[in-house]
Every structure is written in C-alpha cells, then in structure tokens.
C-alpha cells in the first residue's frame, strides 16, 4: 500500500515536470518591420525564423521547441522598449533577440537588465551597447561594433595613396562612433593623413547636395562614408550626379553595408562601381567555408530569392548563440544561460565566433571589397571579397 502511494505521489509530481518539458521556450524579437529599416529588419527576422524552424524540425533544444515571437520596433527606441516590455509581461518570453538601430539596442538593454532576461543584439553597432559603464550580465552582441568597423576601414584606407580624407556620417550614435573610431585609428597607423572635412547630415537626410558641395570644396582625395542602407542609395545617386566619385578617383569607402548585395542590386547600373564597401554577408562569396555555402543555399531557398539578403545571417547567428547557450546551460533560465554565453564559441555560417567574457562581444567582422561589375550578375559585387577578422581591432 505504501509503495503504491509512493508511486502515485511520484507520478503526480512528475506530471507538471513533463508538461514543463513540453512547453516551448519563448523568444521575443523586437525588430523594425516598417519604415526604411525594414529592409534589414525583415530579412534578419527571417534568418532567425529559419534557424528556429530547422532546430524545431530536429526536436528543438533540451527536448523543447523554440517559439519565436516577432514584433515591429519601428526602428524607434521608445517603440522597441514598449514592445520588449509587452513581450516580457504579456507573452512571457524567456529571452530577447533583436533590435537594429544603435538607438534601439541600448534602450532594450535597459529593459533586459530590469527584468533579468538575456538579450542578444544581432545588429546594433554602437560601442555604447557593451561599454564598461553600460554592461550588465544579460546583454550580449553578435554584431560588429563601431570600433571594429571604423578600424577595419582605417586599415583599408591607410593603404591608399591619399593623405587628405573627408568623412560624412549621420549625426547620431552610430555615425559619430564609427567616424571617431576611423579617425583615431588612421591617425595612429598613418599619421600623415589629414582629415580635411567632416559632414554631419541628420539621420535620414534626403538632400545631400549641400553636404557634398561643402565637402568637395575642401578638395579631399578620399571620402569615408557611413551613410547606410537605403540612405546610401539616395546619397550616392546625388554624389554621382555631382561628379564626386570621379573627383576623388573612386577613393571612397562606404561603411554601413554600402557593399551589400541588396544595395548594389537596387541601384543596378547607377551604383558607383569601383568604390569600396562592406557587408555582413554575400551570397557570391564562393571562397567561403562549406558551412557558409550550405547556409547560403538554405537561406536562398527559404527566402525564395536567388540573391538572398545579407542581413538574414545576423538573425540566424543571434538565435544560434542563444540555442547553443541553452544547450550548454542545460536550462532555459536566464541566470544560467547568461553564464553559459560567456566565452561560448559557436560554429556559425560566418565561421567560429566567440563571445568574450570581458565585454560580452562576439568577434564578428564583416566582408570588405572593391566593387566591380561582372557579366554573371546584373549588379555590382565586391571582388575579391575579404572577411576582415576583427580580433586585433577589439581593444
């Protein structure tokens, strides 16, 4: 009788545990799905979703499925905070993976800190996100940083036969930080470089003519821009019309992913072929690892796009780090997962990446290259395209 009772009690106790194991792990993703930033937010969310679908098809993690709940953050810090709170309070998400702009990332980081929930940022680059005074146990980043990007550009520009350099960037966290990283580093590695002009249009400027005229009046030999995404299309169309690229003999580097396939594709023949650009990914990166080529084939199929977006990989890697950390922690508890993320190395489609213990930052670099036109594609590509390993730039 006692044995029967014990069994019964044990069975009853086991029931909720079994039910718990069946419950999906919920991940909230605040990311821009409207406005100009949707161009990156949407594919990044699709990349995350593809990872989740693939993982769930293989049984999920710790025997539990992952449920990804995506919300439009409208590329606005206040809205990103609002939807993050809603995801935590109403949807009871266990983790946050998301945000895109350098305004949204630090804002959502504060929410993660308040709620003690792990937050992985796949795209915002501002150094401030993981700066010593802002760092807390729950924030992590798998994007490049403004330091990494600015210094990578400085190394490339330092090899050009130029000394008079001008910069143009949007006047907000990302633009200021990446420009400062570039200027500080190039002065260190090539002291002969003189910064002859700096232009600071407002974020989202539509008319660059006055800025370009003012910059060209100082006769620079090279220009470093971090006008990103769709804004680069507008900027470079106006710059091309004014003869800016010819005047500086195409000694131009477009940070903020001006070399991404989606940007060159949308501009077609209007792209200023011959400039340098960067990108998180390139489907035409044929010299990449088998893992990357396999990823490219899968994402191409998933997005039903022959030339898939370069932004999907960031959502994919963000989810991949989270799932691997859950596996390592053997728990979906944020306390344990945040500890598991420290020093975690993951074999991503972009190579082996490690989140550093000291600043919660992955050594994520970007692809760089000079653009050219090949008959194979109806738009410019970066060739040769080189992955700049950021490890040496990170301190």
């Amino acid at each position: 009788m006692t044995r029967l009772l014990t069994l019964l009690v044990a069975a009853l106790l086991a029931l909720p545990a079994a039910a718990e194991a069946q419950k999906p792990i919920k991940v909230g993703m605040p990311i821009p799905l409207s406005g100009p930033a949707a161009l990156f937010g949407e594919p990044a969310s699709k990349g995350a979703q593809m990872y989740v679908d693939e993982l769930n098809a293989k049984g999920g993690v710790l025997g539990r499925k992952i449920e990804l709940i995506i919300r439009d953050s409208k590329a606005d810090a206040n809205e990103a905070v609002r939807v993050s709170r809603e995801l935590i309070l109403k949807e009871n998400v266990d983790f946050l993976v998301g945000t895109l702009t350098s305004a949204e990332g630090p804002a959502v980081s504060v929410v993660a800190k308040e709620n003690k929930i792990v937050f992985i940022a796949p795209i915002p680059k501002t150094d401030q996100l993981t700066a010593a005074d802002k760092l807390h146990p729950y924030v992590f980043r798998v994007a490049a940083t403004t330091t990494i990007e600015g210094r990578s550009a400085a190394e490339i520009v330092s090899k050009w036969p130029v000394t008079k350099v001008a910069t143009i960037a949007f006047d907000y966290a990302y633009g200021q930080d990446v420009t400062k990283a570039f200027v500080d580093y190039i002065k260190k590695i090539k002291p002969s470089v003189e910064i002859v002009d700096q232009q600071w249009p407002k974020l989202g400027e539509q008319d660059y003519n006055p800025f370009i005229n003012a910059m060209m009046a100082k006769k620079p030999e090279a220009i470093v821009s971090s006008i990103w995404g769709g804004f680069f299309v507008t900027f470079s169309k106006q710059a091309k019309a004014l003869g800016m690229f010819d005047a500086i003999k195409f000694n131009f580097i477009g940070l903020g992913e001006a070399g991404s396939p989606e940007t060159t594709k949308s501009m077609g023949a209007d792209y200023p072929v011959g400039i340098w650009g960067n990108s998180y990914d390139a489907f035409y990166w044929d010299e990449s690892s088998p893992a990357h080529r396999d990823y490219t084939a899968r994402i191409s199929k998933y997005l039903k796009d022959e030339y898939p977006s370069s932004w999907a990989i960031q959502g994919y890697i963000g989810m991949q780090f989270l799932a691997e950390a859950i596996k390592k922690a053997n728990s979906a508890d944020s306390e344990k997962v945040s500890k598991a993320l420290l020093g975690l190395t993951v074999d991503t489609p972009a190579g082996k990446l490690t989140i550093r213990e000291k600043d919660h930052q992955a050594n994520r670099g970007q692809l760089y290259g000079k653009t050219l036109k090949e008959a194979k594609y109806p738009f410019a590509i970066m060739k040769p395209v080189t992955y700049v390993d950021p490890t040496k730039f990170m301190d």
Partner: protein
Amino acid sequence: MTARPSPHHFVPDLSFVFAQSLSGLTAAMFLFLIASGLSLIFGVLRVLNFAHGTFYMLGAYAAYQIVQWLGTGPVSFWLSALGAALGVALLGGIVERLLFQRLYGKEELYQLLFTYALVLILGDAAKLIWGTQQKSLSRPPGLSGAVTMLGATIPYYNLFIILLGPAIALGFWFALQRTRAGRLIRAAALDRETLGALGVNVNALYTGVFVLGSFLGGLGGALITPMRAIVPGMDTDVIVEAFVVVVIGGLGSFWGTFLGALIYGQVLSFGILFFPRFSIFSIFALMAAVLIVRPWGLLGRPLR
C-alpha cells in the same frame, strides 16, 4: 571628436557659393512641386491632407513600376512620370469622392485623423505591393550628364527641375487668374456657400482641385526618383518638409508656397556652413520666427 577642422579655415569661393545656391534651388523646386499641391488643397478645401506625402510616395513607386513595364527606352522615364502622376491623381479623385466628401464641414480633428489613417493604410498597401526592399530609378537618358559652370558641376537633371518649378508656378498662376475654372477655384477658397448658391457645382470643383493637388504630389514623387531611393517611409519625411514650406509661406497662398520653398532650400544649403551639425535647426528656427511675427505665414492671410 578630436579631428574636426575649424570652419574658419575655409573661405567659400564663388564656384562653391554658386554650386550651393543651385543645390538649394533644386531642393526648393522639388519642395514647391509637392507643397503646392498641399497648399492648393488646403486653400480651397480647408483640409490639411497629411496623406499628401503618401501620394508623393505612391507617385515614386508607380513611376518605378511603369518603368519596369516599359523597359528603359529614351522616353520611358517621362511616360512613367506622367503615368504615375495621372494614376495618383485618379486615386486622389476616388478618395475625395468616396471618403473626403463626407468630412467637409466636420471638426478638423476628424479630418486630421482620417488623413492620418490614409497615411497608414496606403503606406501598408505600398509595402504589400512593392515590399520593403529599396527601389531606384536612373536619370533619364538625355539628362544623365552634367555641365560645368563657374567651376561647379551642375547635373542636367537638377537644371531641369530648377526650370520646371517656375514653369509650373507660372502655368498655375495663369490658369488661376485667366481661366473660368481658376476664377471659380479662387472664389471657392473665399466663400463656398455663396458660390454654391450661385449654381456652381462646388462638389465637382472640390474633386477637381483634389485631383489636381494629388497630381502635383504624384508628379513630385515620380520626378524625385532619379535623385532618391524609393523606400517605405519616404512619405513621412517629405510631408514634414512640405508642411514647413507652406507654414513659412502661408497656408493656401500660392506664391507664398513658392517663396517658402525658395527660403527653405537656401537656408538648408547655406545653413550647414554656419551650423555644420544643426542644418535642420536653422530651418525650424526660421519657421518659429515666422510663426511668431506672422502666424499666417509670409504671404498668407489671417483666417477668418
């Protein structure tokens, strides 16, 4: 930032001033094209159409779409621009007939909410049709080059826009002053009831004005495509700029809009020399100053 060179090192020379003022003029004429439609609709219908920026965006997308259908021939850009403007005008007519007409005489808050709802609905519709990927159109073949004047590079397309602005302004002025429809429009702006009592079909007149205003918005959007990316959200940027222009010039005043656009363009162009990081500040400061001194705008007249 350590490396910002002092602005005092640089003495602007003639070619720079010339280039900068032409930049300002180009921006001004684009804005005039868009703001004139906004101002015209407000002047006659007394409705501040927030969806005007969305008509501009739809003009840009429609031009892109028509170019995809026509291919890149020598005249395809021009046909597309015209087709896009006509398409947007037609849409404006439908919206006015089916929806706007129910709002005349209602509280302004309803009109505002309604036009704002239109912004959201049409914006989402555009996203459904064209997606979130940025689109781009080339400059038309004949105008892809540039000319060097006084040491400054001036794109032909910019010159075309600079000439188009005054041409449209004069054409409008002539039509408003010299034609029967123009006289009726001016009369409707002053006193709708009396005009109706005199047997004029005011509803048809209103539809006509709305169609014309939408046409200008759509044309502005189509013609800007060689200069800007076509992206979701381009509507909200431009409506703010157009709004500033008509506030400075005077809501409903035709030449006021022209003057407001000219001032806007030049202040923005030269503002960056004095306030390199606050170019947008100068324009809003100017708007605030105008609102304090002349709340009805430079060439506007006080509302009754």
